[in-house]
């Protein structure tokens, strides 16, 4: 029952492979792929929202409202004018209905923004209740753990930041992007757009023009961030695009682990999300970026759900720097996302660990890019795709070894699991090698949860639900163990929820 196809690529070869679900599968697993979205509710808070549509005035309005300096407005406008000349990418293995960018509202904030709460005690209880429902007991978590600082983004404006003081003592800056623009304009100006240029791609350009808020992290030289940093994103107001912008700078010999996780309320209309995340790692710096993404995936007929077009990129600018992406993607109707590493510094290391699950009519085209520029650079890619229902799951990965990247190494492992007979798994590896000393390895497997594995578990007395959960969990183990402990538990739970609460 283990269909295995193993490919070891020679330099310069880049043939895409595809595996489609064809043969019949036991009906016994079918009901596992029927699952209601647990976090479907809408918080009734009056929002201040600009009317749908995008033009220069909207951008000026956003920038003015956020009291931004002129240079940032100019930067937005430059991005906007470039965006007008671009068209949405069509190369992904995704079926997307054309998006009407003029039907989207580009700014929304809870009405109480002017007198923003100073602490969690001042936060609208209804909002806190929302987080409770989402399983994000903010104050509880903060009080109990004492290790996780939470910068909450509700719609487009940051509401509260905890542990700021403790982080300040260590010299760490962790604040909303808007605050950073006011309080650390030089840092923002120095780094903004240096990893993902405003013209990088259609969605990055759009984000650059209209980004609302996000997180800013700066870890000074030699500092090991004393706690895991975490942000919870949510989308709430209907038809409101969400354009987060995150910038993390790790100076020489510094160390930071950043967690990002989110859920969204149930909506009928597709919502656009186009975030940009930029990471910069200087000499000997280490950035670990973990994501659990659980946005509303649409219903079982493929109606609704978030369109998630994200540009995430890390720049290993310094020698011996390391950037590690770990993602667990279970939500969104459409996921278009390739967290990447530019391995510029000598002996720098890039890693990508991914679990992507598509159920019902979800589609994901996700993977990574590892661009080897420095000498002795290493990259590792572990991608696990799980397809159920009518889900379509594509891995798309680029490994590029440039001319001067002596002794570059890449290892790619790309595994797909199919649950049911209507789903698909696709693998598109691109390998470009311009230096003969490179060693590039690619392995791919496709397996199916079948009668055999399930029956084996049942015959030992394990229930069907527990069996599916156990098998899927085992499949994802290599990725889960890269997540911070607390997040790993959450990720595992999410996967179970997404495949019908398999673990009781």
């Amino acid at each position: 029952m283990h269909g295995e196809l193993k490919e070891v690529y020679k330099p310069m070869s880049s043939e895409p492979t595809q595996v489609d679900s064809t043969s019949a599968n036991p009906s016994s697993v079918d009901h596992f792929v029927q699952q209601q979205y647990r976090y479907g509710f809408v918080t009734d808070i009056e929002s201040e929202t600009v009317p749908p549509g995008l033009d220069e005035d909207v951008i000026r309005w956003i920038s003015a409202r956020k009291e931004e300096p002129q240079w940032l407005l100019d930067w937005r406008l430059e991005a906007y004018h470039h965006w007008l000349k671009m068209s949405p990418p069509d190369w992904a293995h995704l079926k997307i209905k054309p998006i009407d960018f003029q039907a989207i509202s580009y700014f929304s904030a809870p009405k109480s923004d002017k007198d923003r709460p100073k602490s969690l005690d001042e936060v609208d209880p209804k909002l806190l209740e929302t987080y409770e429902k989402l399983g994000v007991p903010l104050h509880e978590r903060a009080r109990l753990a004492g290790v996780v600082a939470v910068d909450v983004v509700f719609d487009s404006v940051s509401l509260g930041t905890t542990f700021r003081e403790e982080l300040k003592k260590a010299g760490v800056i962790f604040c909303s992007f808007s605050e950073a623009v006011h309080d650390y304009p030089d840092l923002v100006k120095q780094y903004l757009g240096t990893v993902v240029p405003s013209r990088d791609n259609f969605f990055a350009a759009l984000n650059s023009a209209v980004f609302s808020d996000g997180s800013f992290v700066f870890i000074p030289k030699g500092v090991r961030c004393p706690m895991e940093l975490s942000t919870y994103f949510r989308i709430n107001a209907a038809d409101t695009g969400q354009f987060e912008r995150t910038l993390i700078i790790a100076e020489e010999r510094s160390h930071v682990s950043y967690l990002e996780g989110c859920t969204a309320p149930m909506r009928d209309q597709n919502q656009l999300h186009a975030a940009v995340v930029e990471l910069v790692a200087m000499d000997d710096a280490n950035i670990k970026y973990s994501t659990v993404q659980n946005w509303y995936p649409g219903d079982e007929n493929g109606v609704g759900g978030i369109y998630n077009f994200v540009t995430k990129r890390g720049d290993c600018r310094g020698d011996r720097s390391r950037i590690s992406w770990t993602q667990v993607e279970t939500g969104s109707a459409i996921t278009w996302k390739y967290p990447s590493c530019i391995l510029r510094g000598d002996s720098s290391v890039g890693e990508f660990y991914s679990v992507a699950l598509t159920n019902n009519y979800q589609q994901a085209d996700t993977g990574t890019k590892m661009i080897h520029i420095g000498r002795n650079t290493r990259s590792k890619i572990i991608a696990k795709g799980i397809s159920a229902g009518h889900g379509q799951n594509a891995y798309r990965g680029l490994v590029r070894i440039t001319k001067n990247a002596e002794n570059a190494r890449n290892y790619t492992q790309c595994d797909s699991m199919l649950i049911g007979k209507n789903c698909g798994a696709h693998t598109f590896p691109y390998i470009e090698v311009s230096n003969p000393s490179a060693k590039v390895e690619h392995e791919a497997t496709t397996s199916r949860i079948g009668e055999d594995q399930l029956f084996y578990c049942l015959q030992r007395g394990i229930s069907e639900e527990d069996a599916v959960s156990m098998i899927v969990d085992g499949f994802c183990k290599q990725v889960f163990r890269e997540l911070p402990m607390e997040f790993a538990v959450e990720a595992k739970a999410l996967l179970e929820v997404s495949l019908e609460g398999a673990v009781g």
Partner: protein
Amino acid sequence: MLEIKNLHVTVGGKAILKGLDFSIEAGQVHAIMGPNGSGKSTLGNVIAGREGYEVTQGEVLYKGKNLLELAPEVRACEGIFMAFQYPVEIPGVNNTYFLRAALNAQRKYRGEPELDSMEFLKLVREKLKILHINDDLLHRAVNEGFSGGEKKRNEIFQMAVLEPVLAILDETDSGLDIDALRLVAEGVNRLRSDDRAMIVITHYQRLLDHIVPDKVHVLADGKIVARGGAELALKLEEQGYTWLEQGGIQSLGAELRA
């Protein structure tokens, strides 16, 4: 303990078992022998409750109850264990974790307290000692990368931990060299007990040199065609299954006839 009456089973519309009668009591070990395609593995799968096997006629009573209406995991919890001919690999799932989940599921079913990891480890060490199995198997994923011998030993090890009432050993000898076979057979013999029944399904007599059965049943074309003691297996080995087809059964005498 187990009583099968006039069992007819089809697989994918094709009749495989055609009126099989069989029974076994606690404390006994019965061998079911027969040529390829005679329905041996089908019998095991029907008892264990695998999907895709349609019972069209007959009944299966286990501890006096209708076994066929129980879900496979309930049968397991009621003490039915199958040592698989081809144990599947479950990548990333630790062997010990798997077995503890199984044991605790069964204990829960019986209303017994679940074992914590320390208690479980203690139990596992005892069983390993009895079976002379290296604890290396415990740290690996379920059957992943196991040799044929290791897979079969792992099955017997699971059987030792789960302590079934009725164990079915489906072609446990297949793919084993003589040393591995002896090890597995020794394990099985240590697990023989007065309150446990075992059904040993095999094509070859050689396993029965090591696991001596109380009774041998010969299955051909979906029916038991002969029953006898351990000596029947020897006779079969000597004569081959073609001898059956040529009416050799008659020569064994009326008392052996089904």
